[in-house]
């Protein structure tokens, strides 16, 4: 019987734990651990994203401002990634990330990560494939939320 803490660890680190050892050896030196108390804004919409974060524990609200109101787009948990913008050329964030509980992440400085991916395309491709899987999951989850929210009233009108 495997204790829960090991199953949780495997889930929380799913992006990294699925990588090949030689890719991990190149990536890990770029990583550092970060911690945020509940309520802390990790990054702001329209600001600059310096780190790609892999959440290892806690919950994070991804939010955006619409007409002066802050709307929660998604809630992220251990195993999710945030701060994709750190991998783009201009690093501009599209959402605000706010810690809902104490949050721990494994964080990669975007600029160093981009340089390393350019230097080691095989490792970079491996990382991007993993991250793309996460993005796909996130898109599916968001779509389900939107579709679910919109269909419910219609379904109740059906005989």
């Amino acid at each position, binding site marked *: 019987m495997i*204790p829960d*803490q*090991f199953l949780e*660890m*495997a889930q929380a680190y799913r992006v990294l734990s699925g990588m090949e*050892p030689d890719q991990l050896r190149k990536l890990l030196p770029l990583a550092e651990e970060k*911690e945020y108390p509940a309520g802390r804004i990790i990054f702001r919409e329209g600001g600059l994203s310096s780190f790609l974060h892999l959440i290892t524990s806690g919950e994070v609200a991804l939010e955006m401002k619409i007409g002066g109101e802050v709307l929660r787009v998604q809630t992220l948990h251990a195993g999710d990634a945030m701060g994709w913008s750190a991998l783009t050329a201009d690093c501009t964030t599209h959402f605000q990330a706010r810690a809902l509980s*104490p949050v*721990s992440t*494994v964080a990669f400085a975007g600029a160093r990560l981009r340089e390393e991916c350019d230097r080691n395309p095989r490792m970079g491709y491996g990382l991007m494939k993993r991250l793309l899987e996460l993005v796909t999951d996130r898109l599916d989850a968001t779509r389900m939320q939107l579709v679910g929210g919109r269909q419910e009233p219609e379904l109740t009108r059906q005989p």
Partner: protein
Amino acid sequence: MSFEVPGKIIEEYTVRRNRLGLVQFAGTSRPVFLDLVPEAHVGDYVRVHVGFATERVSEEEALRAYEQLGRSGRLETAELDLEAEEARPETVRRQKAR
């Protein structure tokens, strides 16, 4: 998590394709991935960075690291931090091993 001193593997499990171990540091223990150190098993000492054991070290080297930390007084400080573990387990657990 990145610990200044090596930790000792006290348990070992396979979860899906990964090998994980419970690694004991100065008074605390944490689950750690062991995939990068296939030669390390229960009883061995490893260095850990952000949740992964990155290097196996000899027992002599590990004990030397603990001794140096103790001599600098930081191991005692770390032990004192244990008192506060109930209040902020995650944070304190990491601090005390540094």
